[in-house]
């Protein structure tokens, strides 16, 4: 298992911190903006109220055109340091009195401006009409600095930032503690999974008693591990049993193989000896008693010899057949074309007096036991040669083609062929479709061919008709 790029702990802390910080900032911003607005409203209210009072107090001074009284009234503004300037204009809009007394011209405008309050730059300005019993006497102008509002805003921001900072620290501590509670069971589970996948140790358990989904996951995981462990031990038991049974069978098989070997040894040694004696003594009798015997008697002796020899051949062939089934195959690359050519050259020696046309197609290299495959080709080709002997212009062809992932080799002759009704008997042991007086043979050749080919994982079959030649096929898997 590869190491994770990030940890679930980090993810949990990040999520909690992001959430709490965002919430705090939002709440702080709402709070600050609300405080800012209400304080501004309060400032406006205060200045407007002050303007009302001053306007009411200024009526006499304006009515009696007494600037000194007006200045005195305005001087009351001293109590509020935030008011930076004030002015009284008479009915015709001329400057009547100012605060401070000698205020700079940029602090006090030439005209009072529109009635009401307004913000100009960093100042709040209020213009209040001075009215006595419905009769306008002039206008009061007040200019207050908004420095206090700025200060308030600054203090708010600092307080808020401090609060957010403190809260973030608290949130971090809390989330670290909380994530430990959430992440610990998950981490334990991950550790168990890691040890299972790395050490294939199915005996570990997470043993996490968490009351949430992770707990369910842990339980399910533990259950799964128990099941795997149970099945694994079951498989191990089955395997051990299977191995034991295979060992027993192998011993049995070896024993029966040994018996078979002993049997075949005995056949090879003990059955051949009496045959040799029969033939030997028949021959000796012939030598000693030939002059005393008539033609018939000599014929009988000849038949005794021939029968003994034939049985010798049968035993030899049968032994070869039995050996083909038992001997170990030595699979290598076999140049089947060269091998076939060798066999043909050998057979040509036996057919010197015959007119045989041999044709060898393209045959690829195959995988197999060279000795066994040589026996296959020898059997098939000598059969072809034998059964085409009555044909004047015999033609024997060998070719190969690929078919469905296997190589199919065909040996074709234009000889006497066979009755297709008995095709199934062709490859049986000691099965012959022709009388031995017609063609010599023990009937074991094709059985050998079938046994060898099937040991190579291939099939054997034949096509033919009486007097129309025969084609013998065998396939080899690629």
């Amino acid at each position: 298992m590869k190491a994770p790029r990030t940890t679930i702990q980090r993810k949990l802390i990040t999520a909690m911190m992001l959430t709490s910080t965002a919430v705090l900032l939002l709440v702080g911003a709402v709070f600050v903006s609300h405080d800012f607005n209400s304080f501004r409203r309060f400032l406006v209210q205060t200045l407007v109220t002050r303007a009302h009072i001053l306007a009411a107090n200024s009526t006499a001074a304006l009515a009696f055109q007494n600037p000194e009284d007006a200045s005195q009234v305005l001087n009351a503004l001293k109590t509020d340091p935030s008011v930076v300037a004030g002015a009284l204009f008479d009915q015709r809009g001329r400057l009547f009195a100012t605060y401070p007394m000698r205020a700079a011209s940029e602090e006090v405008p030439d005209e009072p401006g529109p009635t009401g309050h307004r913000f100009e730059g960093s100042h709040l300005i209020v213009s209040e009409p001075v009215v006595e019993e419905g009769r306008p006497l002039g206008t009061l102008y007040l200019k207050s600095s908004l420095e206090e509002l700025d200060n308030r805003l600054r203090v708010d921001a600092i307080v808020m930032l401090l609060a957010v900072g403190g809260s973030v620290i608290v949130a971090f501590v809390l989330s670290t503690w909380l994530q430990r509670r959430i992440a610990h069971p998950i981490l334990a589970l991950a550790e168990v999974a890691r040890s299972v996948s790395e050490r294939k140790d199915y005996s570990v358990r997470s043993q996490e008693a968490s009351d949430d989904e992770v707990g369910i996951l842990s339980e399910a995981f533990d259950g799964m591990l128990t099941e795997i462990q149970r099945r694994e031990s079951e498989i191990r038991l089955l395997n051990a049993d299977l191995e034991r049974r295979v060992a027993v069978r192998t011993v049995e098989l070896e024993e029966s193989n040994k018996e078979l070997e002993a049997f075949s040894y005995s056949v090879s040694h003990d059955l051949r000896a009496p045959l040799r004696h029969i033939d030997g003594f028949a021959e000796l009798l012939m030598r000693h008693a030939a002059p005393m015997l008539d033609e018939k008697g000599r014929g009988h002796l000849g038949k005794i010899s021939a029968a003994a020899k034939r049985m010798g051949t049968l035993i030899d062939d049968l032994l070869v057949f039995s050996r083909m089934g038992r001997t170990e195959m030595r699979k290598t690359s076999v140049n089947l074309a060269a091998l076939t050519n060798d066999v043909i050259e050998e057979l040509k020696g036996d057919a010197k007096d015959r007119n045989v046309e041999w044709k060898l197609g393209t045959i690829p290299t195959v995988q197999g036991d060279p000795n066994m495959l040589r026996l296959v080709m020898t059997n098939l080709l000598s059969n072809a040669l034998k059964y085409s002997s009555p044909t004047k212009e015999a033609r024997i062809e060998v070719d190969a083609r690929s078919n469905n992932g296997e190589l199919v080799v065909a040996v074709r002759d234009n000889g006497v062929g066979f009755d297709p009704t008995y095709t199934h008997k062709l490859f049986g042991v000691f099965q012959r479709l022709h009388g031995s007086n017609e063609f010599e043979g023990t009937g074991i050749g094709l059985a050998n061919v079938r046994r060898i080919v099937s040991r190579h994982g291939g099939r054997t079959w034949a096509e033919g008709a009486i007097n129309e030649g025969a084609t013998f096929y065998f396939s080899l898997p690629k």
Partner: protein
Amino acid sequence: MSALKRILLAEDNDNDLDLTLTALGENNLANEVVVVRDGAEAWDFLRHEGQFAGRNGGNPAVVLLDLKMPKVDGLELLRRMREDARFKTVPVVVLTSSREESDIVQSYKLGVNAFVVKPVAFDQFIGAVKNLGLFWAVLNEPPPDRHQTPSHA
């Protein structure tokens, strides 16, 4: 050479013995053929012991050995001969009915000089034995007999 060396024929089967001796006889060999009926007798003959105690003559020119014999079989006799310095170099030809590969391999491993399967057909059998006798008793020069018996010396 003071005397022709003998041929030791180890064969338990009467019929085979009869046929083999007939075949050897057709060669008109001058060599004496000593017949033993099992490996133990052959072993006694080689060592001048038992019924052969006090026999004269040294090692045979060749031992024609059947494999299947009672008491001590052919392979066992061959093993004993090859382990004994006195008979290590005496030519041994296995003459048997068996064509079993294991017998052939085992015989050559033990140091046999030739392995001949007796043909079923008598004319071939005669031919084979005639050739064997001619080759081993006449043409082949046997190893010098370094372990002469006292009577021969």
